């Protein structure tokens, strides 16, 4: 560690939580392109989507009608969310554990969890056909890597004991049997368990939303973000829940909790106006990368530099979430990266304006609270400590390159 870098306490636990979360996020993040493809198709073609709303606005269809080709395109939505996305997650999870062989058995086993509610007729209103199935992200996140791990152990056990010429036969059948057996485990064992867990979790989240208590999650989310747990939290936990909700309701507030670029913009604004003088020149470029580019990591160091600012981040985040939940707003797909542009693209037409207001509200609250916490720069000169003095020389030296990079 250099002396420029303050030693954060408890890095051991933090590193462990980061690792666990990164494993979950690692199954989702490579597939974000697929999530976004699904989200865009949904946003364009659903009855209240862009195509139909525009057609209604121009008077080419009546208020209750929909455009024919939009309905046809809408056929894509169900299979993509129910089958494609969970299978991709199971596949990716398997690949992380045991390469391509793991990926294949992970995908096979995921099917078992997906069809389980139909096979066992789970829930109050069990699905009547394959078309009524819902997505099973939690199940995919579990069974993909577990199945791959099982195959890895089997492969290790028989490695080196095969007669020459039988490798392909054995390899294909160990994979086939492992995948098949785990698909059955998915149907009969894991399927009911994750269905039950998702049910409880869904009720819990709905309860939080309807009691307007959802803003409280910002108390957890904002500090976790600046400890670089942002991906773990957002894509490891919130994206799967959000995708479940979006499959049902067409949009979800879960996609908004972590990805809102407002609080970070507010923090950076406070830093620009009242932060350590030496740091201020680096802020405008960071604002561009954060707010337009969606790389939130860029503002975390500013909070770590002035940890009291975490209160501003929480206040900003919670104000945004309160706003989103009061007006029942949502996004149709994960906004990733958390850029203002990504938000515009995945906002449903009816929510776009209020979503933007929510971002600005979060930014304004974080900026005001942050400015107060920084004492409007009053104590700035006297409180310059060693770290800041170092940063000062760095800031001066690097002012030009930093701006040129942006």
């Amino acid at each position: 560690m250099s002396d420029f870098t303050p030693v954060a306490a408890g890095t051991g636990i933090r590193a462990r939580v980061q690792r666990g979360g990164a494993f979950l996020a690692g199954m989702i993040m490579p597939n974000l392109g697929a999530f976004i493809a699904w989200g865009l198709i949904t946003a364009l073609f659903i009855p209240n989507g862009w195509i139909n709303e525009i057609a209604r606005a121009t008077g080419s269809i009546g208020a209750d009608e929909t455009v024919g080709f939009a309905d046809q395109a809408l056929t894509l939505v169900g299979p993509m969310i129910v089958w494609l996305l969970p299978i991709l997650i199971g596949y990716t999870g398997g690949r992380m554990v045991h390469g391509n062989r793991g990926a294949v058995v992970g995908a096979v086993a995921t099917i078992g969890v997906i069809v389980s509610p139909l096979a066992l007729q789970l829930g109050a209103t069990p699905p009547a056909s394959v078309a009524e199935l819902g997505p099973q992200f939690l199940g995919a996140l579990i069974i993909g890597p577990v199945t791959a791990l099982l195959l890895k152990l089997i492969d290790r056990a028989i490695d080196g004991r095969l007669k020459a010429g039988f490798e392909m036969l054995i390899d294909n059948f160990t994979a086939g049997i492992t995948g098949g057996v785990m698909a059955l485990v998915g149907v009969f064992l894991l399927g009911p368990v994750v269905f039950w867990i998702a049910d409880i979790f869904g009720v819990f989240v709905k309860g939080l939303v309807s009691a307007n208590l959802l803003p409280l999650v910002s108390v957890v989310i904002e500090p976790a973000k600046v400890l670089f747990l942002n991906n773990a939290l957002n894509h490891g936990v919130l994206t799967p829940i959000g995708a479940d909700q979006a499959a049902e309701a067409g949009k979800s507030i879960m996609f908004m909790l972590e990805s809102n670029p407002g609080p970070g913009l507010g923090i950076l604004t406070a830093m620009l106006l009242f932060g350590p003088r030496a740091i201020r020149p680096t802020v405008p470029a960071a604002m561009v990368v954060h707010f337009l580019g969606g790389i939130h990591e860029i503002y975390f160091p500013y909070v770590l530099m002035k940890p009291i600012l975490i209160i501003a981040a929480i206040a900003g985040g919670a104000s945004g979430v309160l706003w989103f939940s009061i007006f029942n707003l949502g996004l149709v797909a994960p906004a990733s990266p958390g850029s203002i542009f990504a938000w515009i693209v995945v906002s449903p037409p009816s929510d776009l304006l209020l979503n933007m207001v929510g971002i600005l509200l979060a930014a304004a609250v974080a900026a005001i609270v942050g400015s107060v916490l920084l004492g409007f720069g009053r104590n700035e000169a006297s409180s310059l400590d060693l770290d800041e003095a170092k940063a000062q020389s760095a800031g001066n030296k690097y002012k030009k390159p930093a701006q040129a990079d942006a």
Partner: protein
Amino acid sequence: MATIDGSSVKKLIVACDAGMGSSVMLASTLKKQLAKSGVTVEHSPVANIPSDADVVVTQSGLADRARHAAPGVPVVPFQLFMGDPQITKLVKAIQNGETVEL
């Protein structure tokens, strides 16, 4: 502290949590700065640092994981994604082939 011999650095890895966001940004900056020095600059998830890396650059919040993922490879932690003095020193050392303590 890690001692880095700038002249022996042939492959520099920028690592971040997912290997998709901030590391890509910083890697593209460093790539430009180190193009003339013949150094390969790549980005990767912190859990998957290539073992043939000569030096790993990562945010200090991820440094522990980087050391864990790539034992034996010197890790240079930095704080700011833009204009960090650690990175400036490292780049200078590589460009001039000097040895630095970071």
